[in-house]
């Protein structure tokens, strides 16, 4: 790594006396962004960690008693925590692969030659641009138990016999929201994978088809290895993003019915927002972050290697 060699950028003709200024300059230019992020990101995070060690309920602001790890002990003994953790795992385990698969198919199609390709490529990303609240609103309308088009559609096809209240039924609510999130997130995968596909040299395929390799074998031995880097990066990024995102759930069901659609970040948010229990909410947020950090560290190590 060259970071230890500050003279790398210096042209040899520059006078020596300016080298001190040059050593300080990079840091000086970085300082506005670094200082502001310290103030508005890292300090608040430390404060969350600090709050998680206290009993702190917002409507009793005078009471800010240090209770050590009691909140965390309570978290581990909390049934709702385990329910939420289970939902978070299902949530990631279903949504991310579904997004990946649909995104991969879309990317492979968009990589073919057809006349309206530019149009298709532009339109496919629309879900990505929409605000989560609007996404939640339109899917809630689709799932509406009385007038929703989902019930109408499935009834006409004869797949279901009577209307299902998708979001009000504990058995279907989580699945319904996961479909919404798959819809929202797959364009990201298709865009990333498409960029990976286009980086594979055409000559590989030409050589393979001269050798008589079938389409499947070409996919298996040229395409998949060619996009594996992008796939891993995109999956890691998406796991982090999907795990973190709870705005769609919050608007669509608010976690209900019962605890049927609780995920960990949502539980932490509701604890703080509805019960104003900032101490316990912080402990939940910190616990969730620690779990998430496993994936984040894997991602950062990959990216860190690329930065070298």
């Amino acid at each position, binding site marked *: 790594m060259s970071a230890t060699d500050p003279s790398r950028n210096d042209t040899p003709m520059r006078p020596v006396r300016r080298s001190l200024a040059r050593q300080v300059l990079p840091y000086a230019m970085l300082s506005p962004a*670094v200082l502001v992020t310290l103030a508005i990101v890292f300090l608040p995070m430390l404060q969350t960690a600090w709050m998680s060690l206290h009993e702190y309920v917002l409507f009793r602001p005078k009471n800010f008693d240090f209770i050590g790890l009691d909140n965390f002990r309570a978290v581990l003994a909390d049934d709702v925590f385990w329910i939420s953790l289970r939902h978070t795992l299902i949530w990631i385990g279903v949504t991310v692969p579904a997004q990946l698969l649909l995104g991969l198919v*879309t990317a492979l199609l968009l990589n073919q030659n057809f006349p309206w390709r530019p149009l298709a490529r532009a*339109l496919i990303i629309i879900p990505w641009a929409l*605000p989560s*609240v609007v996404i939640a609103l339109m899917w809630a309308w689709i799932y509406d138990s009385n007038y929703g088009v989902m019930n109408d559609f499935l009834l006409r096809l004869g797949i279901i016999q009577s209307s299902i209240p998708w979001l009000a039924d504990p058995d279907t609510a989580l699945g319904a929201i996961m479909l919404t999130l798959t819809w929202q997130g797959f364009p990201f995968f298709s865009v990333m994978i498409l960029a990976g596909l286009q980086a594979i040299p055409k000559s590989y395929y030409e050589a393979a088809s001269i050798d008589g390799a079938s389409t499947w074998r070409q996919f298996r031995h040229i395409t998949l290895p060619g996009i594996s880097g992008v796939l891993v*990066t995109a999956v890691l990024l998406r796991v982090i993003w999907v*795990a*973190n995102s709870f705005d769609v759930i919050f*608007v669509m069901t608010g976690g209900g019915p019962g605890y049927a659609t609780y995920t960990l970040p949502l539980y932490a948010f509701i604890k703080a927002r509805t019960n104003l229990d900032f101490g316990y909410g912080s402990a939940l947020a910190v616990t969730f972050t620690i779990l998430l950090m496993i994936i984040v560290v894997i991602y*950062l190590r990959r990216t860190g290697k690329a930065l070298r």
Partner: protein
Amino acid sequence: MALKRKSLRRRILTVDLPMLAILTFTLGPYLWMFLTSITPEKRLFTEGPSIAGATIENYTRLFRTVGFAENLLDSFIVASGTVVVGLSLSVTAAYSFSRFSFRGRRVLMMQFLLINMFPLVLLILPLFVLMRILGLLDSHLALIIANSTIAIPFSVWMMTSYMNGIPRSLDEAAMTDGCTRLGAMLRIVLPLCLPGIIATGIYIFITAWNEYLYALTLGGRNVRTITVAVQTLIGEYEVQWGLLTAGGIVGAMPATVLFLLVQKRLISGLTQGAVKG
């Protein structure tokens, strides 16, 4: 000739039709929302959404009685403020990352990447407490600060990647001609990556416009962004789907249009890092 026709049919079966199916799935919900919004409220529950007898009554109601215009203004102020803060703070940082190598460069870059991975829920609680102490709750500034937690790291990364695309020899030539470092940055590098800066700014605008949880937690009666307004509609006008969907269309419009305008440049910037990595 026969071969060509056969391959065309094959293409339609294996490419055009599946693509069309995926596009239907992608655009269907959005179009359905639009169709609902132009259907008169009375007919919505008897005949369902339809293009016949289209009306804009839901939209006029949205602005007359619900007061959506103010919400749009709030969203605009917050999103523009975030763009200004996000871009201005990160220009010099991006230049520094792109042009110098110094002790701690990698750690600092990773730090900016890390910020975007932290759960929002970890930040939202202390920011609420902080804004309450500072008396900033329910102000535009509070939302601009909150959105900057996402915007600054994002734009540092994007701009570093755009600046990396501009050859260093240009800076060096300018400095040989008597420019200072800052002069070289302002006069040479910034104009050259202006398209990238605009794309980054637009992406920040979209993200801040679409943001909901900060706006809900830190906003209030005075400052109610469009996303919170749409969500409030869901609560207040529970069964008036015509009005609700009109609100959804209006709320999503600016972000959608901007996204379609800059998607090409934006996506090349977003995917660059991933493809290399």
